């Protein structure tokens, strides 16, 4: 008798667990749908013709799938008087982002290595100052930066934009690498010193090979920041050196006459694809790197 009541109670709690689990899944699914809605609207709109957009429903699937809008956005849409699409600006962004990410990551790694492992007088003060750099609003540096770029003779050029992004990113990259390297026992550096390795040898042979997780974190962070940047891009570029974000703005805001929503959507998706790509490819390492603790040998 007691046995039977026990099992039924167990069954009840078992079903309770399953119901709870399903409720959780449903809630999560609803949230996911909610967040995916804008992307859905963007993709479907970009695949519709202008006529269909004008007559049809915003969230309806396209009747006739057409890639015309994508083609126009990539190579035909007008930004002001030029009608070359986002293509040249997309390349500008790549030319800016890749060197800027590479240089700021490498310098950040070096800075972090020095601050964490080569304790010198004032190391903490220097690190605090660099950290402070992370909190300086973009707007504050605009004027001094414009002046600096002018003096250096790289105003309005792609190297100029790379320089700006490297400088602004150093605080973050240094912070990431410093916090990672500070968990590595100082004895590792000591052992390498006794083995005869110098400053750079220890960095290249011992610290960099250890750094994959934090390199991935830094690259994702920096790439997203630099690719998505609009303010520096619009302030320090001129015709021909503008990044894709600025071009997107120009396409959307400077058209006259009929608003080509499908082209705008396609251009926006194109502009967002690289960051999406980087995150999907390296996202696994991102989480791992953020939570990575010590690397006890």
């Amino acid at each position, binding site marked *: 008798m007691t046995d039977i009541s026990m099992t039924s109670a167990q069954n009840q709690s078992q079903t309770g667990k399953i119901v709870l689990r399903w409720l959780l899944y449903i809630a999560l699914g609803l949230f996911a749908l909610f967040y995916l809605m804008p992307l859905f609207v963007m993709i479907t709109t970009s695949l519709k013709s202008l006529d269909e957009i004008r007559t049809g429903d915003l969230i309806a699937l396209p009747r006739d799938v057409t890639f015309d809008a994508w083609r126009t956005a990539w190579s035909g849409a007008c930004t002001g008087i030029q009608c070359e699409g986002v293509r040249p600006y997309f390349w500008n962004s790549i030319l800016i982002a890749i060197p800027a990410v590479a240089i700021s990551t490498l310098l950040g790694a070096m800075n972090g290595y020095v601050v964490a492992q080569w304790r010198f007088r004032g190391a903490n003060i220097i690190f605090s100052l660099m950290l402070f750099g992370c909190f300086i609003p973009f707007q504050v540096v605009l004027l001094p930066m414009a002046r600096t770029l002018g003096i250096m003779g790289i105003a309005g050029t792609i190297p100029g934009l790379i320089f700006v992004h490297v400088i602004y990113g150093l605080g973050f990259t240094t912070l990431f690498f410093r916090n990672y390297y500070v968990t590595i*026992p100082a*004895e*590792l550096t*000591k*052992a*390498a*010193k*006794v*083995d*005869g*390795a110098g400053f750079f*040898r220890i960095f290249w*042979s*011992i610290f960099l*090979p*250890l750094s994959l997780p934090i390199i991935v974190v830094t690259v994702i962070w920096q790439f997203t920041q630099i690719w998505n940047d609009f303010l520096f891009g619009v302030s320090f570029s001129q015709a021909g050196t503008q990044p894709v974000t600025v071009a997107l703005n120009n396409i959307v805001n400077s058209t006259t006459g009929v608003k080509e929503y499908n082209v705008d959507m396609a251009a926006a998706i194109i502009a967002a694809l690289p960051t999406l790509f980087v995150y999907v490819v390296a996202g696994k390492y991102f989480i791992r790197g953020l939570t990575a603790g010590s*690397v*006890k*040998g």
Partner: protein
Amino acid sequence: MSPILDIKNLYKSYGTTEILKDINVSIEPGDFLVLVGPSGCGKSTLLNCIAGLEPITGGSISIGGKDMTHVSPKDRDIAMVFQSYALYPTMTVAKNITFGMKVRGVDQATQDKKLAQVAAQLQIEPLLNRRPGQLSGGQRQRVAMGRALVRDPKLFLFDEPLSNLDAKLRVEMRTEIKALHQNLGASMVYVTHDQIEAMTLATKIVVMKGGVIQQIGSPAEIYNRPANLFVADFMGSPAMNLIPAKAHRADDGTRIEITRKSGGPIVLTDTKNRDLPEDVILGVRPEDIADPDLRGSESTQAAECLIDIVEPAGADTFAVMQLGGKHVTARLHAETTAKPGQPKRLSFDLGKVSYFAPETGLRLN
């Protein structure tokens, strides 16, 4: 023969904090020097100074007869084994061992030869292609030793190399290090906080406290004739009994009076030591308080003691009682008749007794 390591008047301070004060140590080739002391006594800092990993504030260090005070670690002809092993995590065992040679530009053939030699010596051939993360603690320890051995240096430095191992492995590796020292005849400096390690390994011990050397001597000297109360208390397990006592001059020597919890004081006669002040602290090793039937030398004297606690430890049984207001431990044999709460006749051997001054803590005899 000139000393292999000679430290003269070494001072080390961080800002205004003095870490090491007037350190003078020298060792002969083939010596095994152990720096021992409680944590924070400066022993690891001293080792880092010898290695050149920490700059010193004053004094000089010479290794192999050459002044090395301002020479960088790589040119001091030393090798070091660290507490955390400090193996390079991304390199294989073989690369870990040969990294130093690679940095110094030793040719590949020599590297391979030396690697094979060291791997055979430490029996780590099967591990050569693994990474440190795939090794057990004992194996990592061996690899770390291999990295030092392959260097064939004038001086080996060990920084608490066994403290991350479990108790059983620690004893095994201790024996192995001792064997290694005997086979190589190399000079070694070894830092530990474990006084048993110090006693078993050393040919010469330096006991440190608060950045000051308390005593330098052979293990037997340190054990039998500690220079002060700190050394007496720190070296030996269980620790030396330090019992406050009164000394009175008598015709046949010195009468030593120790108060008991109940009854009159125990009175012992020391025939060897005279001219002691009235207040002394008597230092007696637990093995010098034993069952009466075991010892029969002229310096032993028996006295009745009330046993508080009996702790069997296999080979010996420790009995704890209260004398002179202190807990006193006696090392009795395993089948002793001592029972807690009951009096027992114990024999005190004053042959190797130490006396200390209560105010200064310094040795009197």
